[in-house]
């Protein structure tokens, strides 16, 4: 079986909700039914075959070609299989994802991996703001799984994050790890202002000294035993995080945000 491939015919005029095109919903559907699936685009409903040329049959291996930043909700609540996006993805990529894998060979919009529960998302370009965050008004962001960003991430990475790993090879914007409840965010590049703002618990693992709020306190330099194990768990990734040369266990530890619960930590490589 070949991958079930959706090739975008034309740039849509409005944003498109692609949440119906996930592995678990397409498994067992005939090509005719898949072609007839209705996708919301602005205030209109479009047939899937109006937007995409559809080929292949393996619904556990979905490929979206010619993708643009107007395709939202790709892989929403995905429970199994793999979705590969050739091009950019819009907002809410992998929202509430429960398992499986999403690979984006391009950039993604805001709220990628928001409220994700399990599985893996690999973004080979840049990620927009609110990566792994909670939706507006909600109190829990990402609850599990791993997000790997090979480029840069926007502002508010991991806002309200509860569990899981966000790995960023590039830079992260302002308010990285804001209001985090737990989990791990690792940034190999630089971070913006207000790193760890209102952080309650959780770990920010940084390669560069951040601009921390005054409410983070220096806890000194330490050798932490869990770090080699954490890095070892990244071994299977196609990433700089899997490179043994990138690993370390010696860090400067900053505790905070003392204006909040103060049980979070920012670990900076030394």
């Amino acid at each position, binding site marked *: 079986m070949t991958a079930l491939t959706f090739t975008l015919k034309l740039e849509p005029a409005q944003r498109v909700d692609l949440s119906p095109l996930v592995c678990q919903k397409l498994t067992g559907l005939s090509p005719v039914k898949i072609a007839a699936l209705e996708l919301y685009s602005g205030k209109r409903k479009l047939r899937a075959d109006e937007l995409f040329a559809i080929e292949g049959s393996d619904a556990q291996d979905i490929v979206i070609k010619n993708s643009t930043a107007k395709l939202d909700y790709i892989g929403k609540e995905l429970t199994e299989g793999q979705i590969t996006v050739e091009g950019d993805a819009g907002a809410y990529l992998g929202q509430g994802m429960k398992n499986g894998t999403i690979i984006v060979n391009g950039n993604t919009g805001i709220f990628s991996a928001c409220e994700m529960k399990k599985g893996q998302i690999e973004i080979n370009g840049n990620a927009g703001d609110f990566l792994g965050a909670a939706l507006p008004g909600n109190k829990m962001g990402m609850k*599990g799984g791993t997000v790997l960003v090979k480029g840069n991430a926007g502002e508010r990475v991991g806002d309200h994050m509860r*569990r*899981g790993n966000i790995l960023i090879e590039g830079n992260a914007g302002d308010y990285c790890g804001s209001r985090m409840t*737990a989990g*791990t965010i690792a940034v190999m590049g630089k971070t913006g202002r207000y790193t760890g703002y209102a952080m309650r*618990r959780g*770990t920010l693992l940084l390669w560069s000294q951040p601009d921390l709020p005054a409410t983070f306190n220096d806890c000194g330099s*330490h*050798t*932490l*035993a*869990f770090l*080699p*194990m*954490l890095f*070892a*768990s990244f071994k299977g990734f196609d990433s700089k995080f899997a490179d043994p040369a990138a690993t370390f266990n010696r860090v400067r530890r900053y505790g905070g945000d003392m204006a909040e619960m103060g*049980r979070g*930590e920012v670990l900076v490589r030394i």
Partner: protein
Amino acid sequence: MIINGVTIDKTFAEAFPMKATRAIITAQNEKWAMISAQAMTGFATSVIACGCEAGIERVLDSSETPDGRPGVSVMIFAMGGKGLAKQLETRAGQCVLTSPTSALFSGIDSDKPIPLGKNLRYFGDGFQISKVIGGKRYWRVPVMDGEFLTEATTGQVDAVGGGNFLVLAESQPQALAACEAAIEEMRKIPNVIMPFPGGVVRSGSKVGSKYKALGASTNDAFCPTLKGITKTDLSPEIESVMEIVIDGLTKEDIDKAMRVGIQAVCDLGAANGIKRISAGNYGGKLGPFHFHLQEIMA
């Protein structure tokens, strides 16, 4: 059956179902991992009074441990799951958490997890940090030497306890030398521990006593100084008897350990004063696992 002049009695060891777990202790170096493991498995020779039977399974090099440091694998056996969990937790809390540079990890997977560091985390007084790494939960507990890293749970499995054999020799030094040789070989077998001091017990017991308060008492049939005044099981030339008790994850594991142990004793043979190998049982009425010596050595 006679091997190298040593008579293998036509009898069997009788063993019982137990619950077991395994934990891996690591430290800055093997010395400190071993110190912690020895503390954790101390006072754990027999469930009769210790609450559990525990021992060091083997030393692990840094490539075999979760955190890449030298380590020691320890196993704990108890009569029930609740007792096992309590013993594991108290021993981990008092002997591993307290031991400099130590970390503690699960050494066995099962569908019945029991707390390892799950409750020890409260020692952190709210400063403890949870990390889920590779699907497993770990706790980082701040302590005065840095951080105590522990996995939240380990596994509980069904196991077998009380496999044994007796070494009957012409003198005490010869009995001990034979047992030492046996233990050295048996320690190479995975999934088993020999919980008594140095793996050897010199005070084997029988069920019951003339004193009502005692459930067990000295095995007078194998006491050489009582040969003339009790219903002895010893021939005149036997001057010393020592026993090796084995707990293992499966009957097959104990079979293997008994085989290599008895073989090591027989290799010394009659020329070194070893006369017989026997075993302790209760007539086959109490324990469902029977280890027939002659079948094992066949």
